[in-house]
């Protein structure tokens, strides 16, 4: 006689306690391609399922805040390059604006416009890398090649502007290191055309890609409430449906003059975070085009900031007063009045905050750096458990963090 037995998942589920093995502890990182730097995740696994995730950070801690207390304001600019080292220009600008606010300086329009261009190019650069490695982590190699091609062009533009491709150190308290080079804006315009084509290409490669959708859609959704409770900022907050962007809500450096939209997600899952970044690149191009069209003339540094910004080189060589001023500024640093200020700028990864406390003089009493990547990683213990081990690469890629800023 033939006997049949219907197999269903329910049978296994009913025996789950009996079939359950030991939990396994697994260290992912500190050196792992998907942890984008030296991050270690201490995971507790039940088979392939994560039941606990404890991020271990600090491998890249250099004590930037302590170092800042021991050097003049301008000497610290190169250290800001090394926070979010994928968007050093945006860090330079955020730091300079924070200290200038404390000094009560008003920047001329040209300086502000150049800084906006810097910030948006940094955003494009950071998002291109973020999207490229995100795609690579989920198994799509080609996108990385396309986005890095565009980043290479960006680096050439940065080199022309600042003299360095990677660690730009472009801003100074009270201005910039130099004015725009001849014809640079036209070359940025050409870049803008190219990057839009690349983004469209990435769009066609990924947005309807079955594998990519499978690996990102519905993975690790962050609700509005959770995002706010953990203090997420930037694209990660907006992907969760909170329409908050410091460029619109707390405009700085003349952002109120430019027209752009804030992309906002609905579900806050890994796919939404991807979509938000894609649209932000397009909006950044939109801002860049407006900056190029309306670039004001005039001074590119605060001319009235005698005790803060270096006098022009030609005058240092020919005039006694400027020579003394230059000497004092280089040896003692820009003179910033006593007080405290907290300034946040909308950086590619989220709000980069500087809390500067000054007792007067050329050295900050305390310089606190609030890095958005630190915050983005702090949410991992809340969103990773319940997902599979393979989802972690998608989650990390979608949060787009950088350890230089997290560990400082």
């Amino acid at each position, binding site marked *: 006689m033939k006997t049949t037995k219907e197999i269903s998942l329910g049978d296994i589920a009913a025996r789950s306690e009996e079939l359950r093995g030991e939990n396994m502890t697994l260290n992912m990182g500190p050196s792992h391609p998907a942890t984008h730097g030296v991050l270690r995740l201490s995971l507790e696994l039940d088979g392939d399922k994560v039941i606990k995730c404890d991020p271990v*950070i*600090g491998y890249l*801690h250099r*004590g930037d*805040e*302590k*170092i800042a207390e*021991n*050097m*003049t304001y301008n*000497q610290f600019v190169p250290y800001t390059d090394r926070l979010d080292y994928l968007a050093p220009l945006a860090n330079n600008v955020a730091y300079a604006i924070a200290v200038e*606010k404390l000094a009560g300086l008003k920047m001329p329009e040209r300086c502000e416009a150049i800084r906006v261009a810097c910030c948006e190019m940094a955003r494009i650069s950071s998002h291109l890398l973020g999207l490229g490695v995100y795609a690579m982590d989920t198994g799509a190699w080609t996108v990385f090649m396309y986005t890095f091609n565009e980043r290479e062009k960006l680096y050439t533009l940065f080199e022309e502007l600042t003299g360095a491709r990677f660690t730009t150190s472009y801003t100074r308290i009270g201005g910039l290191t130099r004015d725009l080079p001849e014809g640079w804006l036209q070359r940025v315009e050409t870049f803008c055309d190219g990057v839009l084509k690349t983004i469209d290409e990435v769009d066609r490669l990924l947005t309807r890609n079955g594998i990519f959708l499978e690996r990102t859609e519905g993975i690790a959704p962050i609700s509005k409430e959770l995002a*706010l*409770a*953990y*203090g*997420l*900022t930037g694209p990660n907050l907006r992907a969760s449906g*909170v329409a*908050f962007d410091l460029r619109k*809500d*707390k405009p700085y450096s003349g952002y109120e003059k430019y027209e752009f939209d804030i992309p906002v997600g609905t579900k806050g899952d890994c796919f939404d975070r991807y979509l938000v970044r894609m649209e932000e690149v397009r909006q950044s191009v939109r801002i860049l085009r407006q900056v190029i069209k309306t670039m004001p003339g005039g001074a590119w540094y605060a001319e009235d900031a005698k*005790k803060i910004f270096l006098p022009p080189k030609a005058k240092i060589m020919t005039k006694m007063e400027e020579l003394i001023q230059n000497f*004092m500024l280089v*040896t*003692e*640093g820009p*003179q910033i009045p006593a*007080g*405290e*200020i*907290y*300034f*946040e700028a909308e950086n590619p990864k989220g*709000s980069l*905050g500087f*809390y500067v*406390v000054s*007792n*007067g*003089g*050329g*050295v900050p009493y*305390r310089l*606190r750096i*609030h890095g958005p990547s*630190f*915050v983005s*990683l*702090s*949410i991992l213990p*809340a969103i990773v458990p319940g997902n599979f081990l393979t989802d972690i690469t998608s989650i990390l890629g979608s949060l787009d963090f950088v350890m230089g800023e997290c*560990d*400082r």
Partner: protein
Amino acid sequence: MDVLALTQKFPQTQNCAGQDMPTFAVNSAELADIVKYLRDEQGFDLLADLCGMDWKDRTPNLGVVVHLLSTKNREYVRLHAACVDDSVPTVSAIHPGANWHEREAYDMFGIKFIGHPDPRRILMWDAYPYHPLRKDFPLAGIEVPFPAADVAAVTGQTVEPAPMMGGPFVSSGGHMSGAEPQALDQSWNEEKPKS
């Protein structure tokens, strides 16, 4: 924000007239209650930042600075709380994001957060004996045992202070003094070799 409502509800709160945002010195025992009140009643729904401070000349010298942001009203508020016996109540039950910030403040300043769910170090390793952002901690660092004991047992390695010769060069601070700039940390320089 409604300053009057805050100071009426928490009478020990002092308005410090901050230059960039409303700033209050709060009684540290009330810190968590004030943060909760500001979140629930005044819309400060996002913890922008929480950091430790070493005020050096004040007693007590340690304190906490909290920056809150209202995403709806687009405004910030700053709270200063002085530590009592190096501790303040945790706000991580109200803003879970404060968990890591408080761990960092403990790590860097030795501030204890009463009721914190996970009071471990975060940036330095667990056995590290000092709190490096305190003002009495030297920039170069202090020699401590190597974190990996098995490596240290074989190599005899320790974590050494950083060489300070050559910089960083700063003035002594304050108003333009006319003094020559010099390295702030003078425990080791050209005349005095490293002990």
